[in-house]
């Protein structure tokens, strides 16, 4: 029986990025308070796994004089009644009165390595061929397609592009594929329906990972490659790609 792991994330006035094996777990991109509990089981690989969190403090929003803060960590993914609260693989609280941070510069605040004998499923990217130079154009086109879907608020296109990821998330969590797709759709429908939707003009760059089988798209400071802002908030979307069935696809 493989296990589920959860990443708990709460921050305010912090631009923070958390990755697991280079896959984007979450990224907070503006000063508003954010609280998330994310199942990261689909981001685990057999063997060594590496968690990294970086952050930088942000200026206050308007009258908000609450100081910057980040509290995050990797935990046993079982629901709270079953989970031992002490069962934390690695966690940190970042308070600028404790941790020295610099505005305008991202500081790594947590890095933890751990091993897993096996994962919930054998991910398709683990058998993918390396992404060589010839795939660079396809990666760029894939990123443009995602950006285009967000710009056009085309949820159907987004679902098609992220279809493989949704399938493997279902395998990781044991939830029905339809449920995963429904959750993804609802979340992005809410975002794309808000007034004032616009995408940050980011040209993602790709970093090879996992023996070259996966490429992670990165935005500024290693953060999210896609940031959608609305009048109510800012939302990030990750993109990690691999060659599946001879086509470059979004895998996470």
């Amino acid at each position: 029986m493989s296990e589920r792991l959860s990443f708990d994330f709460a921050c305010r006035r912090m631009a923070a990025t958390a990755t697991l094996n280079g896959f984007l777990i979450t990224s907070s991109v503006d000063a508003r308070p954010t609280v998330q509990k994310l199942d990261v089981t689909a981001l685990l690989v057999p063997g060594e796994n590496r968690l990294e969190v970086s952050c930088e403090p942000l200026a206050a929003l308007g009258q908000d004089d609450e100081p910057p803060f980040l509290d995050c960590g990797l935990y046993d993914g079982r629901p709270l009644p079953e989970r031992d609260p002490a069962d934390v693989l690695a966690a940190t609280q970042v308070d600028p009165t404790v941790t020295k941070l610099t505005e305008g510069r991202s500081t790594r605040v947590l890095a933890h390595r751990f091993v897993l004998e096996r994962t919930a499923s054998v991910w398709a990217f683990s058998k993918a061929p390396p992404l060589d130079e010839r795939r660079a154009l396809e990666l760029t086109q894939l990123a443009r397609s995602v950006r285009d879907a967000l710009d056009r608020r085309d949820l159907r296109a987004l679902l098609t592009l992220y279809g493989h990821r949704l399938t493997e998330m279902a395998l990781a969590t044991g939830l029905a594929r339809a449920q995963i797709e429904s959750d993804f759709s609802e979340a992005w429908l809410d975002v794309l329906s808000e007034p004032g939707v616009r995408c940050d003009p980011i040209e993602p760059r790709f970093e090879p990972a996992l023996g070259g089988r996966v490429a992670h798209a990165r935005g500024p400071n290693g953060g999210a490659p896609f940031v959608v802002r609305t009048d109510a908030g800012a939302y990030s979307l990750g993109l990690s790609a691999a060659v599946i069935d001879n086509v470059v696809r979004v895998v996470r």
Partner: protein
Amino acid sequence: MERYFPSYQVEIATAALDVVVLWNDWPVHTSRDPARMQTTSVRLNPMVLEGGNVLSVRARIPEQLVPAAPHLDVRAFRMLAEDDLVFFFRHFLRPQHTRLAKDGWTEVARHEIELARTFGRWAWEDGAPYMDADRDAVLAALSDLHAAFARGDYAGFIGRMALKLEELARSTGRPTGLVRDEQLRMLTKLGELGFVVEPLDLSQIELASSAGGRLVTATRQGRAPLWATLGGPDGPPHPFQVTFGRVGGRWVPVR
């Protein structure tokens, strides 16, 4: 004037494992008896460095297997008051996520942090690392300390500890004079109870370097107290330990 002085601490709870916890390569915790749950809390302030600090947690399977589940819980935090804690690192060892080497130590967790509030640069940080050729000089400094202690010259003893006490006072926000006076009063009072001071057998002294070789801690073999028991030969050992650093070309007590 600060209302609260920051205290950086690490708490370690461990069982069924050999564990060493290093803070800037300074051993803040070493498991002694893996068969029993051991809990330690250590104040890190005197070893806080300007710039980067590194907490390293190392574990290994005990030579004599213990019939219990391995347990290791590490929490490092800044405390301003009992209810004002910021946990800058927490780690709970899950055996299924850690492959311990069978023949040595494995670093099971590591945390790097630059602290916003530090206490200045320590004199020993600029010293050259300890080499085997320095052993005689360190033992000479230890002998000098022992001689002052043995003749009951506690003021002289405290004087030789001046740098250590100044830096400890700085790291805890207390006036140096107050810390020095407290130490002198305590030693004088204990001296009245009667220390039994043993001769210093230099052949029995072990020197262990840490902090990248810039600190050298003297202990007697088997980590026995250096030279004194309190209130008679069968009295409790005076928990005396001294760590030297090279300052101005001389080895002086610094921790």
